[in-house]
C-alpha cells in the first residue's frame, strides 16, 4: 500500500500517453459491454426468473402453421389452466415495410390476455375500455414513444395473411417485459373470415403452479397428437430459446468478437507498459541498487499496469452505464431495434467487464515487469536512453 503513490505518480508521469491509453482501453471496453448486453438480452429469461407459469403452444410442424380455435376451448377445460388466449401473428404492414415500422401485432382474446400476462400493467387508459371496444388496440409503452401515439389515436394496418385494411383505436397502453407489441381483438378477424374457423398461430396459457406447468405440457401434446393439428407445447423460456436458435451462429459470432476485442486491449495496454519500462531502465536499476528487491520491482510494474487497466476499464463501464439509456433510444431506430427493446443493465455484464479488466491489467504488465525485474543492475545503469 505504501507504494501506491509511487505507482500512481509513475502512471501519470506522461499525461498524454496515459490519457491516450486510458482512452484506447475505454472504447473497446465500451464495445465489450455492449456486445455483452446483446448476449445477455438474448439469454435473458423473459419471466425474470420469477416463474410465470406460462406455456406457449404452436403447431408441431412450425410456427408458421395454424391451430384452430377449438384447441383454445379444449385447453381451457384442462385442470390446472388458469387462462388461455389465442395469440395470432397478424403480419401486415404499418405505413410501409421499412425496419423502422416493423413491430409485432397479435390478435388475442381481450378478456384473458391480461390474466395470462398478469405482470403487465395498464398505465394509460383502462382494461375495461380495451375489452369493451371491438376495434380497440392495446399497445406497449415503447411503441407510443417511438411513433408518438396517444390514447384515442387511430392506427391503420394493412393485412396480408388476413387481407384488408384495419383501423384500431388505442384504448390502453401497457408497461411490461416486451413493450413493443400491438394487441387487438382476434374476434375481429374471425368475423371477417368466418371460413377460417378462428385459426391462430399460437396459444398462450397461464397455469396455476409450477407443478401444473410440468403436468400440462405433456398432457397438451398428447391431447392433440392424433388431431389434424398436432401441437408442440413448451415453457415460455423454451419458446423464446427456439427463436434465438433461429438466429444461428450469431451468439458465437458476438462472443468471438468480444474475445478479439479483449485481445486488442491487451495489445494496447501491453504496448504502453513496454514503452514505460523501456524509458525507465536506468531508474529501475537505481532503485535496485538502493535496495529494492526484484520482487518489489515486479510488483510495482504489475500494479501500474493493473491500475492503468482499471482506470480504462472503470471509465469504459462508467461511459457505458451513463450512455445506456441514450444508446437504447438510438438503437430502437436502428436495424438492431429487435434487440434494443430488451436492453437493460445486466449485472453479469459489469462483472465480466471487471474480470476482463483485471486479466488484461495483469497480462499486459507481465512481460515488461519480468524483463525489468530480471535485468542485471550494472546493465541497467550503463544503459544510455
Amino acid at each position, binding site marked *: 500500500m505504501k507504494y501506491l503513490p509511487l505507482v500512481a505518480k509513475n502512471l501519470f508521469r506522461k499525461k498524454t500517453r496515459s490519457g491516450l491509453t486510458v482512452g484506447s482501453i475505454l*472504447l473497446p471496453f465500451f464495445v465489450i459491454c455492449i456486445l455483452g448486453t446483446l448476449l445477455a438480452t438474448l439469454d435473458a429469461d423473459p419471466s425474470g426468473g420469477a416463474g410465470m407459469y406460462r406455456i406457449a403452444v404452436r403447431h408441431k410442424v412450425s410456427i408458421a402453421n395454424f391451430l384452430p380455435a377449438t384447441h383454445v376451448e379444449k385447453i381451457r377445460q384442462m385442470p390446472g389452466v388458469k387462462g388461455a388466449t389465442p395469440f395470432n401473428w397478424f403480419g401486415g404492414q404499418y405505413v410501409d415495410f421499412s425496419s423502422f415500422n416493423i413491430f409485432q401485432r397479435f390478435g388475442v382474446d381481450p378478456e384473458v390476455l391480461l390474466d395470462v400476462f398478469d405482470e403487465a400493467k395498464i398505465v394509460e387508459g383502462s382494461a375495461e375500455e380495451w375489452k369493451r371496444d371491438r376495434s380497440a388496440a392495446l399497445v406497449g409503452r415503447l411503441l407510443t414513444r417511438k411513433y408518438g401515439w396517444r390514447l384515442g389515436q387511430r392506427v391503420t394496418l394493412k393485412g396480408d395473411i388476413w387481407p384488408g385494411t384495419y383501423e384500431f383505436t388505442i384504448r390502453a397502453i401497457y408497461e411490461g417485459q416486451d413493450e413493443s407489441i400491438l394487441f387487438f381483438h382476434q374476434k375481429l378477424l374471425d368475423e371477417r373470415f368466418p371460413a377460417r374457423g378462428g385459426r391462430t398461430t399460437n396459444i398462450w396459457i397461464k397455469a396455476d403452479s409450477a407443478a401444473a406447468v410440468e403436468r400440462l405440457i405433456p398432457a397438451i401434446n398428447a391431447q392433440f397428437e392424433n388431431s389434424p393439428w398436432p401441437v408442440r407445447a413448451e415453457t415460455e423460456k423454451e419458446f423464446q430459446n427456439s427463436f434465438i436458435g433461429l438466429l444461428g451462429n450469431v451468439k458465437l459470432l458476438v462472443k468471438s468478437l468480444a474475445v478479439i476485442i479483449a485481445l486488442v486491449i491487451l495489445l494496447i495496454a501491453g504496448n504502453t507498459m513496454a514503452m514505460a519500462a523501456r524509458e525507465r531502465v536506468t531508474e529501475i536499476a537505481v532503485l535496485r541498487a538502493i535496495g529494492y528487491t526484484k520482487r518489489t520491482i515486479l510488483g510495482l510494474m504489475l500494479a501500474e499496469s493493473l491500475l492503468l487497466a482499471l482506470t480504462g476499464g472503470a471509465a469504459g463501464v462508467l461511459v457505458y452505464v451513463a450512455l445506456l439509456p441514450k444508446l437504447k433510444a438510438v438503437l430502437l431506430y436502428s436495424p438492431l431495434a429487435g434487440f434494443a427493446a430488451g436492453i437493460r443493465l445486466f449485472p453479469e455484464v459489469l462483472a465480466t467487464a471487471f474480470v476482463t479488466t483485471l486479466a488484461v491489467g495483469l497480462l499486459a504488465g507481465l512481460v515488461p515487469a519480468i524483463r525489468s525485474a530480471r535485468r542485471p543492475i550494472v546493465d541497467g545503469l550503463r544503459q544510455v536512453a
Partner: protein
Amino acid sequence: MLSIPLKYNWRNLFVRKITTGLTVLGIGLVVAVFLCVMALGEGLSRVFTASGSDQNVLVLRQNSQSELQSGIGRDQVPIIETLPGIAKDTDGKPLASPELVVVVNLEKQGGGSSNVTIRGVGEKAMKLRPTFDMEKGRMFTPGKSEVVVSKSVSRRFASCDVGQTIRFGAYRWTVVGLFDAGGTAPDSEIWTDVEGMAADFKRNGYSSVLARTTDRAGRDQFLAGLAGDPRLALEGKIERKYYDEQTSTAAPIKFLGVFVGVVMAIGACFGAMNTMYAAVSARTREIATLRALGFGRLSIMASFVLESVVLALLGGLLGCVLGALAVKLALSGVTGTTNFATFSEVVFAFRLTPELLGTGMVFSLVMGFFGGVFPAGRAAFTKITNALRQVG
C-alpha cells in the same frame, strides 16, 4: 520545400521493433474484425442480390411482404396464366409455376433445430430458375412424396441426404436428389411437387405464382393486367425486386459491423497516437537537428504523418491478410440465420469482396492519419534551441 526522404521514416519504424509490431498488430486485429463481420453481412445480402430475374414476375396477394403471408386461389391461376405478356414454353404452355411455401422445423446436424422453407413447385419451376442444377440423384416424381434438397441445406440439417427420410409431424418424405442453385434463394430450400404438398398440408390454394414474361414490354403488360383486374386482388412483383427487398435481413449484421469497427478504430487510433508520441519524444533532438539543417516545419510534419500512415497501412495489410485467412480457413463453410420476412433459414457463406478489402485499407489509412497528425504537430513546433539543449 525540402522533403525528408521516406527511408528515414521506414527505418525509424524498425528501430522500435516491439512497439511498432504491437501497434501494427492492434490495427491489424481491428481491421480483421471489421472485415469478418462485414464479410458475413456481405455473404447474407449476396443471397438476395443474386436471386431473381428481371424477366420473372412473382404474383402475390396484395400487400404481402413475402410468399409466406400470401395466398392465391386455385381458380385464379388460369386467369394469371392467360394474361397478356406471359412467355410460352416450347410445348406451347405458359411459363408459369404455381407454388406453395410452407415452413417446417427440422433438426440440425449436431443438435438444435431451425425453420426451413419447403417449396411445392409446378412443372415449369426449373425453367424459371436457370441457376437450378441437379447435383446428385434425380428430380422428384410428382405424387410420390419425394423431395429434392439443396446441397447447402443437406449439409446443415439431419437426415437430408439422398435415400434418407425427412419427417415432420405426420409426414414422411424421401430425399431423392440434391440440387445446387449457385448461391441464390433456392439454396435454402427443399422442393417437392406442389399438388402432393397441397394435399399433405391440407391447403386448397397456392402461395404465389412465378411467371416468365416475354420481354420488357411484355412484363409491363403482364403487370398492368394483374393490377387492372380488381377481381384478383393480386399484385405482381419483379422477382429480382422481391429478393432485393429482403436484403434488409443483413442490415443488423452490417450495422453491428460498422458500429464495432468505428468505435474500435478510434481506440486503435489512440494506440497509434501513443506510438507516434513516443517516437516523437524519443527523437526530439533529432528533429531539432533536422530543423537546424533547414528542413521546414511542413516537411517535418508531413514526414511524421507519413510515418504514422505507413504504420497503419502495415496494420491494414496485416488485417486484410488475417481477415482473408479467417474467411478462407475458419469461416469457409456455409452458415445460416433466419430471414424474419419468411421465418425460415437462409443458408449463405462468408464473402470477402475486393471492395471490402479496399474499405479495410481506407479504414487503416484514416486511423494512421489521425493517429499521426497531432504527434506530428508537436514535432513540427519543437523549439530548436530547447530541443538541442535537451539531454537524453
